[in-house]
Structures are given as C-alpha cells and as structure tokens.
C-alpha cells in the first residue's frame, strides 16, 4: 500500500489539508486503489502547505501547495508513483530552506507519525531517556548544564541551573510544569512540536522528572491550540500503554505521571508564577519572587517550569551529550533556536538554526523579503514585548547578548515582519493597548500606566502639546520599566520606545529628534 504524508498541523489545516485528505481518499477509493495517509507534523515551509508527500522506492517525493481541486490532476499525473506535475517539488529535504537548517529539536517533525511510539523509536526516540535511566539525577542535570541550554520561553535563564535548584530542594513532592502558553504573536514553535512530535516533549519532561525526583508533570496548554491538545493526549496515552509513562517506567522502578491542563485565554498566564496560580485554580495574578518556583512552586512544592522548546531539546542532549549540543551556536548562546518567520514575509515558516545567523539572512535568504513585495520597514523580534528593529540593525547576529546590546530581545524566537505601509505610532499604541488588555492588575504602573500610555500616544499623534507629551511618554515608560513586578509592564516600553526612537516621523515628530 502506498504511504502518503499530509500534515495534521494547525496551519496546514487552516489552508485546507483536511479537504485534500478527503479528496485523495475518495478518488483513490473510486479507482480501487488503497492508500495509507499518515498525518504527520509540518515540515515548516508554510507557503508550500498543504504539502503532500508520497513514499516511493526512490525516497519521499513532495507536492505543494496542494488544493483539493488539484487532486484529480495529481492522481492522473501519477502522484502515487512520485511522477512529475506542476506542483512537484521533489525531496523536500533537498530544498535550501530545509537543507541548511540544524534540526536538533525538530529532527522528527514532519518526518514521522507524531503519535506512533514505533515510529518515534525508529527515528532515535527515547534514546535520551534510556541514557537518563542509567544516570543519577545530578549526572542528568550536569549534561543539561554542560549543553549551555538557556530557557527558550523568553528569559533565557540557564536550564541546568534551574534544574539544579529543584534537585537540591528537599521535598516529599516535586513537579515538572511545561509552559505551553505560547502567547507571543509570530510564534508557533511550541505548537509545531506538540502537534508534530509530542513524544519528544513527553520524553524531555520524563527526563526532567528523573533528574530532580519529580513524579508528576503538567503541560499548561493555551486554549487556542485544540489540535495540539488532541495530539498530546494521544501521545500521552500511547506512552502510558507502552510503559514510558506511569509507575515503574520501563521496569526502572521510577514513576512519572503527565497531564494536560488548558489555559483560558490570558496572555499573562505565560508568566511562570501566574501560570502556577492558574494551575492551582486561581486568577493568574503574578507572584512576588523570591521565593523562586524552583523552591516554592506548584502547590507550594519545588517545581521546574520550562518552555516547550527547552524541554523538547533535552532528549537530544541526553542522547548525544551536552557537548554535542554546545558545539552549535556562538558566544553564550549555545545550540539552536527554532525561528518562526511570520507576518508580511514571502516564505513564512519555521526553521531551526544554530545561533549566529544574522537577521538579514533570516529575512532575505530564508524569508525572500516581504510578501507584498514592498520594502521591509520594521521587524518585531521576540513577541509583543520585543523591540521593533529597523533596517540599520539587520546585521545583528542571532545571539541573546548581541540583541540585548541593541535594546532588543530574542524571546521565544518569533519574528514578525512589517512592510513600509506600517504605521509605527499605531503599533506603539497597540503595544500599550495589549498591556491594558492583558495586565494581571497587580501593579499600578502596568495596569494604569498602560491606559495612560494609549492616551498620551493619541495626543502626540493628534498634535496636542507634542513635545511635552513625548517627554511624558518617555517618563511613563521609565516608570513602567522600573515599577512593574513582571515583564508585562516592565517590557511593554520596548516596542513603544523602539517605535518612537526609530520611526519618530510616524508620530508626527521630526526624524532624529524624538
């Protein structure tokens, strides 16, 4: 039977992948042919989705973007034998966009059946766990520390150090919490892992549990990701059924239980202490730190809170060793970052590369410039709390420290591109508006300051006491930066001030004088 691969990824579905599956099933059945359609993750080349891959004697052959209306002509041309057609792409892994990547964390995404343990095992899955089962907790933590992995959720805190704190915190119960709230616009790497290779996240969390002696894990998943929830629950059930989760994992005597919990549409619940409050069934009010969640976390117990990508990078580290991972990257940014290229860009998608690549290479070599064909004017890196970066800064390498040096952040690796029709005063206003909408309300500079921020920007744009109000806006941003408990209020000034500083003309202010 011919094997076909058509993605179950949300973005592929949003472009009609399900209709393509149905059309192929109906038309092949009508011709008396039988096909086995594997619902894989996406390869991440979204301008080619829905992508159809067929397994042939000569390897996998891809076609895309396929519309359900193309199916008849594809079948006629010999899709099932990998024959030629206008939508023929050949081996997707040979396209430069794919070939030039360093796919460590995303190695299996798009390749395998996401919820098949056998497929996972056949592609190096659970080798990290097998190694971890032979090690002491402290030895596992050492591998993670040696890898140089820093948290991919935004703050870039060294993962090994966090784990070590939890390891050394004595308690009768500890928890592993996966932050799958992925609220930043322009990001979808967590989603793609959870839909495309959920077992790698499950394996990473299990290893974390072994490392620090935690027996219960929770994945806090945003409600906007129903397909990820389905894939995770299928994969968790499969892992339980085969003894990779539960009591006595693979006969080791070790226990790890895992459960998915849904968020409810609050951006602030991505902040780790707000997330813990939410998991406990409360409003997502940010907690004061210290105590750190590593010491007093979920239900008052020592807790690892890590981003999906951080945890999903652990299996390859335990499989190939911390040094293998550390050998990628530059400076203090080790390993790889799955970049998500979105917005007004010709070739949007996800590609995983070692740190060090420049923004210009990302935008033009991978991205192919804007989707509209107009000049790229501003790029927001690192989500709604990230700075807007302008053309003059495009040669900055992908590196946490290099971005900090230009008052920008990498965050979770999302890049949103705007062409020259963007109005940056509107984007600055939106940043304040978003803070009004999503503030947890605990501190005044964030809760009230953001409302005032919207008003002040409106006044500047309307031309009312421009100079005075510009001073006021800067002053307000300063108060928010230094008077907020968390980065929601503390970093909203990043997009606002970068817009004001780099694009004063959009605020009706003279260039170079804002």
């Amino acid at each position, binding site marked *: 039977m011919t094997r076909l691969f058509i993605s179950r990824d949300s973005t592929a579905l949003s472009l009609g992948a399900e209709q393509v599956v149905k059309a192929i099933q109906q038309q092949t059945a009508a011709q008396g042919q039988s096909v086995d359609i594997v619902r894989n993750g996406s390869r991440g080349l979204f301008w080619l989705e829905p992508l159809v891959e067929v397994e042939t004697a000569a390897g996998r052959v891809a076609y895309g973007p396929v519309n359900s209306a193309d199916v008849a002509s594809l079948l006629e041309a010999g899709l099932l034998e990998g024959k030629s057609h206008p939508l023929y792409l050949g081996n997707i892994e040979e396209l430069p966009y794919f070939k030039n990547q360093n796919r460590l964390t995303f190695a299996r995404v798009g390749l395998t059946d996401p919820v098949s343990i056998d497929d996972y095992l056949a592609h190096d899955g659970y080798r990290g766990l097998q190694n971890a089962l032979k090690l002491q907790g402290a030895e596992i933590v050492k591998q993670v520390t040696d890898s140089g992995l820093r948290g991919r959720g935004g703050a870039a805190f060294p993962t090994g150090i966090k784990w070590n704190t939890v390891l050394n915190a004595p308690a009768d119960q500890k928890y592993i919490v996966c932050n799958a709230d992925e609220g930043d616009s*322009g990001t979808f790497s967590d989603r793609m892992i959870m839909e495309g290779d959920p077992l790698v996240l499950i394996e990473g969390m299990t290893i974390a549990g072994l490392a620090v002696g935690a027996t219960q894990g929770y994945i806090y998943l945003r*409600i906007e990701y129903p397909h990820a929830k389905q894939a995770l629950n299928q994969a968790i059930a499969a892992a339980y059924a085969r003894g990779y989760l539960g009591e006595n994992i693979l006969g080791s005597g070790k226990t790890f239980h895992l459960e998915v919990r849904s968020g409810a549409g609050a951006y602030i619940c991505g902040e780790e202490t707000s997330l813990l409050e939410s998991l406990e069934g409360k*409003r997502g009010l940010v907690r004061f730190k210290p105590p750190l969640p590593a010491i007093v976390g979920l239900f008052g117990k020592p807790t690892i809170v890590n981003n999906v990508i951080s945890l999903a990078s652990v299996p390859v580290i335990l499989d190939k060793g911390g040094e293998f991972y550390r050998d990628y990257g530059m400076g203090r940014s080790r390993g790889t970052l799955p970049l998500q290229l979105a*917005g*007004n860009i010709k070739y*949007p998608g996800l590609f995983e590369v070692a740190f060090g690549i420049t923004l210009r290479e990302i935008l033009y070599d991978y991205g192919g410039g804007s989707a509209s064909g107009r000049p790229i004017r501003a790029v927001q890196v690192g989500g709604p709390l990230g700075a807007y970066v302008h053309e003059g800064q495009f040669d900055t390498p992908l590196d946490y420290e290099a971005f900090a040096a230009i008052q920008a952040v990498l965050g979770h690796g999302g890049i*949103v*591109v*705007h062409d020259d029709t963007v109005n940056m005063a509107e984007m600055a206003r939106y940043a304040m508006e978003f803070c009004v909408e999503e503030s947890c309300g605990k501190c005044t500079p964030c809760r009230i300051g953001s409302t005032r921020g919207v008003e002040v920007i409106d006044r500047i744009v309307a031309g009312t006491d421009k100079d005075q109000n510009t001073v006021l806006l800067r002053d307000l941003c300063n108060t928010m930066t230094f008077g907020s408990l968390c980065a929601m209020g503390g970093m909203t000034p990043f997009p606002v001030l970068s817009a004001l500083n780099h694009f004063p003309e959009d605020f009706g202010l003279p260039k170079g004088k804002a």
Partner: protein
Amino acid sequence: MQDYQNQRSTVLQILDEHQSMPGSLLPILHAIQDTLGYIPPAAVADIASALHLSKAEVHGVITFYHYFRETPPGKHTIRICRAESCQSMNSKGLEKHAKAKLNIDYHETTADGQFSLEPVYCMGNCACSPSIAIDDEVYGRVTPEKFDQLLACKGAE
C-alpha cells in the same frame, strides 16, 4: 436565558467528576462551558460550595480569563486575531469588514443568534496571517471575500 434548573444536574455531575483533582477549578469551568456553551451565573454558588470557596472567588476567576463567558454564545463563535502578525497583513481591514457584515461589535451576538464575535490575540497561525477561527476551526490568509464565503457556509449549516 435557559432555566438553571435544567442545567444544574450537568453542573453537579461535572463537580462530582472533578472531586479528587488538584487545582480543579479551571478544568471544571472548561467542562461546564464545553457542555453548556457558557458558565451560567447561577452555577457559581454550586461551584463555590463544592470547592469550599466564596462565590466572589469563583466569580473572580471566571471574569479574569477572557475565554470564559457568562452568557450563551451564538450558534457559531467567530474569533478574529488582533495580534501583530495579522496586523501586518491587514487584519484591521478584515476586522472592519467582519463587524460591518455581521453588524455587531466584539463580544456581541447577531440578532438571529447565529454568530458571536470575539477578539483573539494570536492562534499560532502567524505564518498565514490574517487568521480567524470559527468554532474550533482556524482559517489562514483570510480576505474579506473568503470571510463572506465562510460565513455563507456556516450560516447554511
């Protein structure tokens, strides 16, 4: 609005099923909204007493989260993404079109009860902006024309 007496047995059953779950309030609220479409204000007292919380605490949680609603939704809920990536691909134009076409604003339901309109901040579909969701289905690269087609499809269901 439906009579809570008809919904109460559902709520009590959900409360019963979650008795031994740690941190069960959000899962309970989700289960109620999944089943009834919203969280009836009259259910708050039952939830509070089952979890040994005050009614104010339960109400506080319901109102903190954008996703929970206390009024019945239309037959279909349309969510339009307002976040940056979609803005870069003219979601504001789409937003304006949708509001005019449906003749409602955000957080409202059409007079015929067919559609509710809600804003959403990112659905992770940023590679194919602008995006909307209708119920559980996400649609990418949505133009005003495509919006009208989707509306016609759903309206005919």
